[in-house]
């Protein structure tokens, strides 16, 4: 129930692995997952359960005047219909996603305006469709443009990142530059679409509530429930043993958390609530569309003089989320004159939020596309152009990099794809009806860490139990932590049990910002080393009873050296484009990453593959289409919002550079969950240009952008 899993049977110990590169480990929860025994949030066996179904606004802006509760309550099996007119007032966390049924305002189409609770899911769903909601509608604006009247410069960006940065005189330097690129790149709204819809099972027993919830961190979910329902921490428990993906969308509690707890309290029964796939497009966040103007100026040798990257993004009217689109541009390349800037439009749209590599992902699409354009204008190899502009230190902060191996990644990738033999001229290679091209882009993502606590227990039988409230959303965190724990304890992996995914465990941060293994692993390594020392000191023959030690990394994270900690990578794409139909096929993707120590090669490879695969979707398939008239992402399901399927992905090859970095954390790890998506779309779009000679500056690349019949 708390993530108890058997360790894989292997006799390999940390000593035998030689310290730096661990022996590969298969997922500790793998058997449960392939046999269907792994329970996700909606699936915990609970008796007498009732089902809650959201009624969502079908106007984009206005007020709820009335909900016809009486008519619905007369239908069989209906236990409650809650809306702001009859729901209790609750405390606010400051996050609008937790302010459920608290006001008559409709801020975006798809916002929850009522909840039906019934004895069966079938009845709850049908009645939710029958409930009559009377709206007073107001005019709306939902389409992002670069000259929107509401544009403003936010005080700061997501995660507290500064809105602007400027060095030198970018405007004058651009005018002076011998070779210039000045282009606008666009990305559409993108939807996380984790396979497991957001779901909560809520059970009240006396004055305590237990939630089985699908999230990227059960501590913030617990804290939000405590705040909203004004409960002390020890009366709320959130269990998240298995989570079916998140990609940022489960980083904070989504509406079903508060609604399930509220509904369960109201009807006096356990309640299950899952968002539907369609509802997810409005209720769990998404990546804002972006409009990005990039200006690059270089001398004839390809040395960048100026980098100017300005982004326009959108947010909702009632809550700001300002994506840090230009953030990667601040660390990528050397140039004396530079600027990054952000403007936000306030629209009647769902609240944008985190989606895999917020900031880096859309920003690097634009920057790395512009770098490719610059290489073409210089008549220079795009790999060499990047190497030529490699900075000695962080180009904006001036700090040293704790490690930076972008050049090694570019060189290795170039070798792997036979880049040296590439004819740089666009439209130079043809096989039958197909134009073939290759493209390159760099990747980067910061190596963050957040404080975490953990405990480790030595049992008299020689086994160990390690506890940390980590969350495994598919990353392989549980397995990586087991590898690190066994290593620090000097124990065989099958002697160690690792417990995660429960807010009653020692507190730790969310699975986000690619910092899970660094943050949780740091605490696990620390507590296991402390336990080992204690055992060697006091109980060389093993403890007579359970011996537990605790540790936190709170202090370790203060006063760290002022260096820039960042992972890098290089991605190479080969595409073919049909001259007849315009069909674009990805033949091959190669990614080479420098991300510190790779704790578990098996699951790390899957993380890179997954990020790159989602990046291919961004390049060629994924597009949230905003309907101006309805104020709605019109294609809000998996039939019309296309994510990659198996046939879209052919050959993907992943490698990593052996990178040693003592300054990131004691394990030497950098995050790997997000970097795979960063740069992938640019590599593909650059390959499309190389294949066809057509530069598409708006994602996804459509076949009508490149098809001869459409030109």
């Amino acid at each position, binding site marked *: 129930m708390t993530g108890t899993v058997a360790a894989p049977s292997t006799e390999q110990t940390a000593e035998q692995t030689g310290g730096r590169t661990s022996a590969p480990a298969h997922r500790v929860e*793998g058997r449960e997952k*392939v046999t269907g025994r792994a329970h996700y949030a909606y699936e915990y066996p609970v008796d007498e359960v009732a089902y809650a179904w959201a009624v969502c606004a079908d106007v984009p802006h206005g007020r709820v005047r009335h909900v016809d509760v009486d008519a619905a309550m007369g239908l069989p099996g209906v236990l409650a219909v809650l809306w702001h007119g009859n729901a209790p007032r609750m405390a606010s966390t400051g996050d609008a996603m937790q302010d459920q049924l608290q006001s008559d305002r409709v801020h975006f189409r798809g916002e929850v305006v009522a909840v039906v609770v019934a004895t069966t899911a079938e009845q709850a769903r049908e009645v939710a469709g029958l409930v009559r909601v009377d709206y007073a509608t107001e005019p709306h604006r939902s389409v992002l443009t670069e000259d929107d009247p509401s544009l403003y410069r936010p005080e700061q960006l997501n995660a507290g990142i500064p809105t602007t940065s400027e060095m030198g005189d970018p405007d004058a330097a651009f005018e002076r530059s011998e070779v210039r690129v000045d282009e606008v790149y666009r990305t559409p709204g993108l939807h996380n679409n*984790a396979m*497991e819809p957001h779901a909560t099972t809520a059970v009240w027993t006396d004055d305590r509530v237990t939630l089985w919830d699908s999230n990227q961190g059960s501590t913030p979910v617990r804290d939000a429930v405590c705040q909203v329902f004004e409960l002390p921490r020890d009366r709320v428990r959130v269990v998240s043993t298995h989570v079916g993906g998140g990609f940022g969308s489960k980083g904070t509690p989504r509406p079903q958390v508060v609604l399930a707890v509220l509904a369960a309290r109201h009807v006096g029964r356990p309640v299950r609530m899952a968002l539907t796939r369609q509802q997810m497009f409005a209720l769990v966040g998404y990546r804002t569309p972006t409009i990005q103007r990039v200006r690059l100026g270089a001398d004839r040798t390809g040395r960048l003089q100026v980098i100017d990257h300005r982004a326009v993004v959108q947010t909702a009217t009632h809550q700001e989320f300002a994506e840090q689109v230009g953030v990667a541009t601040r660390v990528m390349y050397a140039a004396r004159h530079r600027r990054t800037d952000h403007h936000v439009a306030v629209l009647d749209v769902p609240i944008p939020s985190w989606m895999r590599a917020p900031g880096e992902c859309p920003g690097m699409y634009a920057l790395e596309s512009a770098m490719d354009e610059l290489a073409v204008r210089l008549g220079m190899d795009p790999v060499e152009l990047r190497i030529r502009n490699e900075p000695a230190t962080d180009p904006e902060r001036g700090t040293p990099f704790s490690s930076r191996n972008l050049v090694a990644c570019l060189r290795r990738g170039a070798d792997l794809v036979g880049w040296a033999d590439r004819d740089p001229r666009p439209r130079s290679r043809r096989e039958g009806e197909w134009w073939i091209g290759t493209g390159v882009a760099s990747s980067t993502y910061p190596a963050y860490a957040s404080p975490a606590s953990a405990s480790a227990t030595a049992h008299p039988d020689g086994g160990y139990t390690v506890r940390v409230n980590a969350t495994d959303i598919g990353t392989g965190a549980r397995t990586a932590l087991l590898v690190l724990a066994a290593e620090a304890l000097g124990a065989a992996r099958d002697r160690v049990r690792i417990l995660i995914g429960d807010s009653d465990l020692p507190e730790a941060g969310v699975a986000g910002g690619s910092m899970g293994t660094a943050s949780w692993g740091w605490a696990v390594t620390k507590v296991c080393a402390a336990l080992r020392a204690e055992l060697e000191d006091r109980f060389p023959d093993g403890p007579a009873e359970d011996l537990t030690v605790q540790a936190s990394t709170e202090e370790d994270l203060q006063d760290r050296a002022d260096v820039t900690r960042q992972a890098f990578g290089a991605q190479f794409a080969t595409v073919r484009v049909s001259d007849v139909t315009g069909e674009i096929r990805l033949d091959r993707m190669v990614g080479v990453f420098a991300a510190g120590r790779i704790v578990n090669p098996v699951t790390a490879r899957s*993380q890179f593959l997954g990020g790159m695969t989602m990046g291919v979707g961004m390049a060629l398939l994924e597009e949230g289409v905003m309907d101006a008239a309805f104020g709605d992402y019109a294609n809000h399901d998996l039939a019309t919002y296309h994510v990659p399927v198996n*046939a879209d992905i052919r050959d993907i090859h992943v490698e990593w550079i052996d990178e040693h970095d003592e300054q990131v954390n004691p394990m030497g790890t950098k995050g790997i969950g997000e970097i795979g998506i960063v740069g992938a779309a640019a590599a593909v779009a650059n390959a499309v240009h190389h294949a066809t000679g057509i530069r598409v500056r708006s994602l996804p690349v459509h076949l009508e952008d490149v098809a001869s019949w459409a030109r």
Partner: protein
Amino acid sequence: MPPSPSPRSGSGGPPASTVELVVNGRSRTVRLDNRTSLLDALREELRLTGSKKGCDHGQCGACTVLLDGRRVNSCLVLAVAASGRPVTTVEGLAAGDRLHPVQQAFLDRDAYQCGYCTPGQICSAVGVLAEAAAGWPSAVTPPGRDGADGSVAGLDAAEVRERMSGNICRCGAYANIVPAVLDAAAATAGAGADGSDGGAVGARS
């Protein structure tokens, strides 16, 4: 057994039927709301939650099970329509502790991450092996090879990618799913495509 409906009036509740669910070799007779999908009957009524709900609209494949030995999206099948017909779910594939070759291959190849699409992928792959063994062509099967060959050996990476494209994996494990399915094909070649009681398409009746 055909479902036996109850009259619309009289009971006060929504129309319901008595349905015989034959799942993983076990038969159970239950009373179900007529609107209940096979997926919800499995998950809520039988508490077999291995089959997942990713979309409830036949768009993702997470709910894939074998019905009469053939893969279906169980969210698109009404439970009453499945009455009396054999269903195999992911819970019914292993023989005790011995995993089905497809399950084993998914473990060995790390052909998953979060695991939410995985039961559907695995059931789908079991169906693919049976379909290929029965000589069913796919959209990428070259002309002339369609249906005539009849061997699992006819599966290659392109065939697997095509045949598995009804199962979305947002974690992006496709590059591992393809070799896993090919491993399983090799492991089951000659021994019949399907190690479970689900039966092979075409061969069954």
